C-alpha cells in the first residue's frame, strides 16, 4: 500500500487551507505531520479519508484515485466520535456488522482488538462510562478491526492529560509494531511526533504547505526513556525550531 498526494490544494471559499502538498506514505511507515493550529492538519486528513475533495491535485492509494471515504483508510478524531448508545464491543463491531460477517468470525476479531487495546474488561461499558484515554482506544480499535491500509490519526491524544498521553503513545507504537499497519498521524506536539514517527513532516501555515521533513533514525523499540537521550532531544529541538520558524513566517512567505 502506498498513499500518494500529488500537488494537492484545498480552498474553503477564498481561504487557501492547503497549497500544493506532495507527500508519499510508504507501507509500514509511521508518518507524523506536525504544524501549528490552523496549518491544515485536519484538512489534510479529511482529504486522505475522502470526506472532502481536493480543489486541485490528486490523492491515490496504490495508484487508485480516492473518490470517497472507505474502511481502507480508518480515521480517528481527537474526541467524541464514538456511538454513545453502543457498548465498547458494539462500537468496535460497527464496521464488521456492515460486512455481514457471521457472529463467530466477528467475535474472534473483536476479541483480538479489544485485548490488543486493553479494553477487554470494559467491553460492555457505554462510552460515557469510560475515561478519555479508554474512549480513544475504542476509536482506534474500531478503525483497526476493519484492517485499513492506513490508519489516520487526527491529534488522537490532544485532549488527554500528560500521563495518559504517554501511555497511549506507548500503546499506539506497540499496536503499530504488532499489526504492521501504516500510520499517518497529525499533531501539534513535536515531542509526540518525534517519539512516535519513523519520519516527521513539518507543515507551514497560511497557506498550509510542506515546509520540511526529517527522518527519525531512532530504534524501533522505543520506550519513554528515549525521550531523555541526547539523540532524541537533538531531533526534537531541530524539529521544534522548524515548526517555530514556519509559524512566525506564516502568511509572509509564498514560495
Amino acid at each position, binding site marked *: 500500500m502506498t498513499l500518494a498526494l500529488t500537488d494537492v490544494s484545498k480552498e474553503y471559499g477564498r481561504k487557501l487551507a492547503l497549497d500544493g502538498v506532495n507527500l508519499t506514505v510508504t507501507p509500514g511507515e509511521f508518518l507524523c505531520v506536525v504544524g501549528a493550529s490552523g496549518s491544515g492538519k485536519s484538512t489534510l486528513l479529511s482529504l486522505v479519508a475522502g470526506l472532502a475533495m481536493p480543489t486541485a491535485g490528486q490523492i491515490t492509494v496504490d495508484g487508485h484515485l480516492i473518490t470517497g471515504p472507505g474502511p481502507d483508510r480508518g480515521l480517528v478524531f481527537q474526541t467524541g466520535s464514538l*456511538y454513545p448508545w453502543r457498548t465498547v464491543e458494539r462500537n468496535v463491531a*460497527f464496521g464488521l456488522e456492515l460486512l455481514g460477517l457471521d457472529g463467530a468470525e466477528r467475535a474472534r476479531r473483536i476479541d483480538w482488538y479489544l485485548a490488543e487495546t486493553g479494553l477487554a474488561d470494559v467491553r460492555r461499558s457505554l462510552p460515557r462510562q469510560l475515561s478519555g484515554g479508554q474512549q480513544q482506544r475504542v476509536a482506534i480499535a474500531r478503525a483497526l478491526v476493519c484492517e485499513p491500509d492506513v490508519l489516520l490519526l487526527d491529534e488522537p491524544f490532544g485532549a488527554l492529560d500528560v500521563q495518559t498521553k504517554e501511555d497511549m503513545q506507548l500503546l499506539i507504537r506497540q499496536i503499530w509494531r504488532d499489526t504492521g499497519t501504516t500510520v499517518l498521524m497529525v499533531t501539534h506536539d513535536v515531542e509526540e511526533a518525534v517519539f512516535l514517527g519513523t519520519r516527521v513532516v513539518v507543515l507551514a501555515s497560511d497557506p498550509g504547505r510542506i515546509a520540511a521533513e526529517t527522518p527519525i533514525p531512532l530504534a524501533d523499540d522505543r520506550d519513554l526513556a528515549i525521550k531523555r537521550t541526547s539523540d532524541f532531544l537533538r531531533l526534537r529541538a531541530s524539529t521544534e525550531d522548524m515548526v517555530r520558524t514556519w509559524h512566525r513566517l506564516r502568511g509572509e512567505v509564498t514560495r
Partner: protein
Amino acid sequence: MKTALAGRTTDVRAAWPPLPRRTRPHRKVLTIRTPIPRRAAVVLTALSLAVPLVSWVALSASGLVPATFLPSPGAVLSAGWEMARSGELAVDVGTTTRRVLEGFGLAVLVSVPLGILMGTFHAAQAAFEPVIGLLRYLPASAFIPLLIIWLGLGEPSKIAILFIGTVFFNTLMTADAVRSVPRSLIDVSYTLGARRGEVLRKVVVPHSLPGIIDAVRVNAAAAWNFVVVAELVNSTAGLGYRIVRAQRFLQTDKIFAVLVVIGVIGLTIDVALRLLRARAGRWAA
C-alpha cells in the same frame, strides 16, 4: 510584546484604591440549578397539590359560590362514579382515545419520516421547512369550519383537525432532533464503510430517537387538547361531547368529572412516554 510596565520604574497602580469585594449571600432554596433538600422538594410538591384542593373544599363548603358554579369535590366524585357505573364514561373515553390514536398516529406516521428527511437532506429542508414553518402558525381550531365543509360532520373532519394541529410541530421538532447528530459521527461512519442508507438507519435514527420521543410526548399533549376542541362541535360521543351536553343541563359536577378524567389520562400518557424516553436515552444520561 510591549506591556504597561515595560521600561518604567514606578507602578501607577500603587495609587489606585483596592477594588470593592462582593460578598455572596448564603445558599438559599433559590440558587440557580442547585438541588434542594429532598424534604423541601416533597413539601413544595405536596403544597402545590394541597393548596388548590383545600381551597376548593373550603370555597364550596362555605356556600359563597353556588353549587352550579363550583360543585363540591364530593359531588364531582359521585358524578364521575355515576358516569362510570352507567358505562357512559367507558364509551366516551374509548371514542376520544380512538380519535387521538387515529389522528395523532397518522400525524406521527407522516411527521417522523418527513422530519428525518428534513434533518438529513438539505434538499428536503429547502423544500418543506418554509411551508411547514408557515402552516404551523395557523391555529388548527380555525380550520374546523373549513374541514366540516370539506369533510362533513363525521369522523374524518375530527381526525383531520388532530392531524393538522400536531403534524407540523412534530415534523419540525423531529428535524431539529435529527440535526443535532454530530457531524463527526456521520463522517466516521462513512470511513468505517457505511453507505448512506446505513448511516441513516444505524447512526442518525438511533442518535435522534430520544429527541423524537420527546417531540411526540410534547405533541401528544397538544393532540389531547385538539380532540376535545373537535368534539365540542357536533359529536355523539367523546369526552368533549360529554362536556357540551353537561353544559346544556347545567351539570357542572359532570363537567368537572370529565376534566379530571382528561387530566388523568394525559398524565398517564406523559408518564408512559417519559419512561419510554428514559429507556431509549439511557446512553445519554
